[in-house]
């Protein structure tokens, strides 16, 4: 097979290829070592990490929906100290870039996290201002341009690391938030996080999720994600990491054409643990078939 270049440089963050895994759907990486060659991944967005350990929500925490799923995990994680002491050493020597997804209740929380994570082995931070399950300010940060910007500014003041800001789709105009975070100093934008949804058990007359509402992800949300990537790609200059419903190579290619420079696979890992490898192979095959030599050649081709 003709070799094509899959290396992507996202404003200084150099990935061996554009396939990453979405925060919260791939653990810290090794959870999938029985199924994929972790060294072939471009990056892993690790589980959303907070200053203190978080227990998260009661169960049920997931519900299946047509071509999608709802989750209300509640950002369960062992906390940044445990991550640094016990998890990072286990993953830092893989070829994938380690991208730590950070979340907080206050702007200061994000800054403190950034300070603590400014270490060897952490390749970038993904600022999660958009988790719909976090009640204390998490949602508000992601739905207003000034609030989103304030978080990015605070993190940027704390570190020179590559910053990715992850945008929520639960807004009227995602481009205004994208421009705000770009101006505040983000190096990359990732989008989208989940759509807020609910499923009710018609026999028990109550929501299936203990938390009542949760984040909708999976193939169902792909059209919304594609549209938002397409819009934001035309509103900012920073590179984008596209995610939301990517389940095969064709989906990934749609995101590149919409303007994404890299992609992240989430829910599809649950359906097919080998999906990331299939996507990598499929992207390469498509480039060869269409006569491209480099993945970067197809970025934004659908934008005219």
């Amino acid at each position, binding site marked *: 097979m003709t070799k094509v270049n899959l290396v992507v440089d996202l404003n200084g963050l150099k990935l061996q290829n554009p396939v990453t895994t979405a925060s*919260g*759907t*791939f*653990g810290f990486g090794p*959870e*999938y070592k*029985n*199924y994929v060659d972790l060294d072939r991944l471009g990056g892993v967005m690790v*589980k959303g990490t907070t200053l203190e350990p978080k*227990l*998260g929500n*009661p*169960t*049920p*925490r*997931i*519900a*299946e*929906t*047509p*071509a*999608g*799923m709802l*989750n209300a*995990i509640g950002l*369960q994680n062992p906390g940044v100290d445990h991550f640094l002491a016990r998890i990072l050493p286990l993953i830092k020597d893989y070829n994938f870039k380690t991208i730590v997804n950070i979340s907080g209740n206050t702007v200061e929380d994000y800054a403190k996290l950034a300070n603590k994570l400014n270490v060897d082995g952490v390749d970038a931070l993904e600022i999660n201002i958009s988790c719909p399950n976090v009640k204390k300010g998490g949602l508000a940060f992601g739905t207003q341009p000034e609030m989103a910007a304030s978080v990015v500014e605070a993190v940027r003041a704390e570190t020179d690391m590559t910053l990715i800001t992850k945008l929520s789709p639960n807004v009227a105009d995602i481009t205004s938030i994208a421009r705000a975070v770009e101006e505040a100093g983000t190096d990359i934008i990732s989008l989208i996080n989940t759509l807020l949804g609910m499923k009710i058990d018609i026999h028990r007359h109550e929501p299936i999720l203990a938390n009542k509402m949760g984040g909708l992800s*999976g*193939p*169902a949300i792909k059209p919304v994600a594609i549209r938002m990537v397409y819009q934001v790609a035309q509103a900012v200059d920073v590179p984008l990491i596209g995610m939301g419903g990517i*389940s*095969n190579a064709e989906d990934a290619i749609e995101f590149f054409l919409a303007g994404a420079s890299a992609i992240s696979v989430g*829910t599809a*890992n*649950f*359906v*097919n*643990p*080998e999906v990331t490898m299939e996507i990598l192979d499929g992207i390469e095959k498509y480039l060869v078939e269409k006569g491209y030599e480099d993945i970067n050649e197809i970025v934004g081709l659908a934008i005219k």
Partner: protein
Amino acid sequence: MSKRVIAKIISQEEISPRHFKMVIDAPEVAKEAKIGQFIHLKWVAKLNEYDPLLRRPISLNEIDKEAGTITIIYRAIGRGTQLLATLKVGDQVDIMGPIGMGFSIPEEANKFVVVGGGMGIAPLYPVVKKLVDEDKEVTVLIGAENKGQLLNLADYEEMNVKLKAATVDGSYGYQGFVTQFLDDTLADTNYIYTCGPEVMMEVVQEWALANNVKGEASLEERMGCGTGACLSCVCKIKVRNESGWDYKKTCIQGPVFPLSEVIFND
């Protein structure tokens, strides 16, 4: 060590209304499988149909390492399990497995009680079979809505076990719930296994604590990934920390946990 395999169905039989027994040709899974583990299962989509989307966790009811087959017994209740029920001999299924921590058998124990309720009977059969193979004294207590739902009943009747059965409709054995059998006559039990409705397992736990019997429970939670990545499937387990408990992942840290450590909710 869990693998993802596409495997062929060798047999599929409706053993009672809406209850199916499926035998799957999966030597790689059978070779690795231990009693109490499960598989994370999906029908094979013809063309990446994404609805229904997720896999279904189903316990191993039988493991035949020589033949290289695994057997599951499941109830066709929702979309995924009903789809599985439409499959025929020769069709394929998409398996992740074997997954999880299964049942253990302590060296020092020699008198065992197994308490299964409803679909919870299915995961317990492998542990009973192993205990019988090892010439242990086993009392099997099973309960269900009706006789048809007393899974593996015929198998138990052919085994050297003490068997008691309860049915809610009185169609077989004692009318009522399986927990009626937990009495003083079993007080010399060394070890107990249970799987079924939480209300049942809670009663079993109380009885075990009162009688100082150690044991294990096989738990059920909605699952997404089956790898320990998503944190959907957590259950509350007692630990030594300031809260006295922590979440454990039912998929890879379970589904079998020490009975005394499980925190049941209402």
